[in-house]
């Protein structure tokens, strides 16, 4: 089974973020492989271990995004593809999806694995767009995946539980953090990753045009802050005060 996992380099969730002058997120800070993608890579590796095949990582970003791919390769993925192009700076979800879909199409993958949404963008729109552009079904919010020949069965997280969804491959799945605990790269894995192939391609290599972005950021303002109320130390009277607030709000 040929598995493609999409990966993204994102600002480190544990670092402080800042904005550029044009109000886009500053992405030159400390960057890491998106934690959600680590779960996707782990699931891909487990499926490969069970069913054989290959795990290919596909990413879009500046050249330094190779580090994110390299991290996935050190976990055990086989090779990587980085789409990098000046025209992709500030790319919206559709252009991102077009570029990724073109690279994935060339791989003829049986299964595409994405995180449900990126840590930094959080639009969650790229995976269904890729599925549509590839012409394959999508099984999203997977917390468990079973492969049986060319049949894929997924437990899809819902608001009050899950649904069992089935489709034939080729297909795209998006995975939640519940899918698998990402493994740590071993020293051997890190050494091996150094000699694994990371191919760099441009938009024209993929035959994709840039385009007008879906949105123009007109302004960025601070989110409306709530006014702080009173803060009290619990000296035994806290319960009475909470009860009063509940009664004033007419929920008690």
């Amino acid at each position, binding site marked *: 089974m040929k598995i493609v996992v999409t990966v993204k380099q994102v600002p480190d969730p544990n670092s402080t*973020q800042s*904005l550029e002058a044009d109000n886009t997120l500053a992405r030159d800070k400390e960057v890491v492989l998106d934690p959600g993608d680590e779960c996707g890579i782990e699931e891909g590796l487990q499926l490969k271990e069970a069913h054989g095949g290959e795990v290919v990582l596909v990413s879009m970003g500046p050249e330094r995004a190779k580090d994110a791919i390299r991290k996935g390769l050190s976990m055990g993925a086989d090779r990587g593809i980085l789409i990098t192009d000046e025209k992709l700076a500030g790319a919206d*979800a*559709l252009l991102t*999806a077009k570029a990724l879909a073109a690279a994935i199409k060339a791989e003829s993958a049986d299964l595409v694995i994405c995180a449900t*949404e990126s840590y930094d963008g*959080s639009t*969650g*729109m*790229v995976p*269904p*767009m*890729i*599925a*549509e*552009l590839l012409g394959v*079904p*999508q099984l*999203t919010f997977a*917390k468990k995946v079973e492969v049986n020949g060319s049949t894929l069965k997924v437990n899809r*997280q*819902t*608001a*009050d*539980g*899950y*649904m*069992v*969804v*089935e*489709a034939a491959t080729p*297909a795209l799945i998006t995975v939640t*953090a519940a899918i698998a605990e990402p493994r740590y790269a071993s020293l051997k894995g890190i050494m091996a990753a150094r000699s694994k192939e990371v191919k760099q391609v441009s938009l024209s290599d993929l035959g994709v045009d840039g385009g007008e972005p*879906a*949105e123009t*950021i*007109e302004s*960025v*303002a*601070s*989110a409306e802050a*709530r006014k*702080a*109320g*009173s*803060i*009290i130390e*619990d000296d035994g009277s*806290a*319960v*009475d*005060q*909470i*009860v009063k*607030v*509940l009664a004033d*709000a*007419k*929920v*008690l």
Partner: protein
Amino acid sequence: MAKVCVYAELSEGKLHSAATEILTKARELGDVTVVALGTGAKAAAETLGKHGAKVAYVSEDKVFDDYLAEPATDVLHAIQQADAQDLVLFSFTSDSRDVAGRLAARLGTGLISNASDLSAADGGFVAKVPYFGGAKVASMRANGKPAIVLVRPKSFEASESGGSAEIKEAPGSVGDGSKRAHVLERVVEASEKVKLEDARVVISGGRGMGGPDNFPLLEDLASALGGAVGASRAVVDAGWVPYSMQVGQTGKSVRPGVYIAVGISGAMQHTVGMKTSKVIIAINKDAEAPIMKMADLGVVGDAMKIVPALTAAVKAKKGKT
């Protein structure tokens, strides 16, 4: 008037509450057509009409219940071909997200996701989108034709405007090629007595609860108040409680009368899903926790003592009245 189309999500025969919320805003922006697909669509169309929809495209074909995303995308695409809309609105919920992404790619137009507000401006539409972890709000102009925007649930309060929608059969035909992601079974895990999204009181627990064994303390308080229990992402990721309880950016948005945050520090990821609550009470050991700065009442103390005492006090007060 602009032509606005709202995709009204149905799940197991029920209209998602976000549909009427979004419709309440949509009717300010233009003439609204709604699309309701699957079991319960006809009854939903009546509700949607009362909330301002002029036309409702309806189909109760089981194909919409049994297959994810693609059949609904086919219908929305057919509507767009036959009667081009200026704005297509979806809720930012998992089923609608799947449809919106496919539709945008099929139409070759972009979209704006995760919006918390929307307005008409200069002949187009501008969406407000939480940005930078929720600390900022970006105003984004939609360049697509149609403009496609996904709106977070609980961004607007639903209200009826009277009226009824003209019912039309949903156009387009769903081919076998779209019957691919087949729903075999639906499993309900959460035995919620009161739905988190609809509860008048929400009590949420975070890392400060110490462990999953202490969550029954919150359950007791919730049942005394007739409320529901939520949780922060940290404790869901840690496996203490199921995802269905998660409040925040990647979980549910809630807007209860009173929100009680217990042992939750108040990361943006969490607060973006609850900061429109009418009253916020925080119980935390740390007086400096960010949640304290947004709470109407912040209590610095030991939740393990305060919560059971509060439950007892609520029960006593209820007993008297």
